[in-house]
């Protein structure tokens, strides 16, 4: 009798406040597993965002900072510069990273900060009740886009991975999702590879995870998975955009 799957030591025992079926929870687990499996949990310092993952500092079983909205990469920079021997990661939503925190993520990448970022793209501001994000799809409704996002009014959604991949210091950029066990496995692989880029001192790494927000999308958790696959993946193609050459 062997245990095929059990809870990772990388998570605390605190129950999360996430809504039922929210894939934030899946990603938390993958990050925690990666920390554990790569042997860096005990030297990890995580930075939680402002967003639904604001309480991530209670969930990851390592030292944590709660950052101001959007500023996690700057906070992580401060930490990493003081503690280059530690493993430093940020966990951020699309409002946090792709909107208010644009300058901070771009410049963490630009400087090649040796930190790793997990970027939860759920095409919405979850925490604050479903406002439009820069990643909200055209036509998708949000409380601040009640008639659906209108391209003529505020453009097409921004593709962060594609944008960051143009920056030299960003050494690992990949977009994944977690809508099925197979995708979950791939996502984990990407997260681990991304983390290794930091561990090996190569530079900045980011994994964008297409994620669901059943609550604010107004869908059941399983409907939300399907909506993501049908609508988000076509616009946000999955795949690796960049990895250090040696790893390729």
């Amino acid at each position, binding site marked *: 009798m062997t245990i*095929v799957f059990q809870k990772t030591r990388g998570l605390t025992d605190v129950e999360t406040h996430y809504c039922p079926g929210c894939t934030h929870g899946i990603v938390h687990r993958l990050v925690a597993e990666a920390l554990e499996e790569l042997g860096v949990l005990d030297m990890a310092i995580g930075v939680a965002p402002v967003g639904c993952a604001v309480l991530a500092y209670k969930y990851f079983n390592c030292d944590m900072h709660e950052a101001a909205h959007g500023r996690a990469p700057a906070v992580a920079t401060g930490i990493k510069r003081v503690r280059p021997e530690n493993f430093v990661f940020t966990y951020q939503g699309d409002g946090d990273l792709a909107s208010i925190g644009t300058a901070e993520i771009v410049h963490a990448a630009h400087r090649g900060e040796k930190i790793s970022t997990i970027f939860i793209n759920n095409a919405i501001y979850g925490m604050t009740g479903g406002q439009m994000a820069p990643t909200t799809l055209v036509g998708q409704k949000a409380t601040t886009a009640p008639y659906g996002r209108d391209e003529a009014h505020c453009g097409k959604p921004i593709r962060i991975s594609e944008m960051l991949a143009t920056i030299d210091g960003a050494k690992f950029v990949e977009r994944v999702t977690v809508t099925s*066990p197979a995708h979950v496995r791939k996502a984990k692989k990407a997260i681990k590879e991304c983390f290794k880029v930091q561990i090996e001192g190569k530079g900045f790494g980011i994994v964008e995870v297409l994620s669901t927000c059943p609550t604010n999308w107004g869908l059941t958790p399983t409907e939300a*998975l399907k909506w993501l696959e049908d609508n988000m993946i076509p616009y946000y193609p999955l795949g690796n955009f960049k990895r250090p050459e040696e790893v390729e």
Partner: protein
Amino acid sequence: MAQAKPKIRGRVTFNEDICKGCGLCVQACPVNIITLDNSKINAKGYHPATVTDMDKCIACASCALMCPDVVITVERL
């Protein structure tokens, strides 16, 4: 009926109290043995997931991989 090849068998355990009844495991199980137990409401107010026919479990861990709340432990027997 075709000859059954030596089948992997598994056991899944649910930490029912923290299940949020989201159903992601239900959808993920390739052998369709998980359901939400509508007869129960756990402390959090949800119908927790449960396995109907454990014998069919193939320990694939798909359910666990999809569970956002780390409710599930999977063993291979």
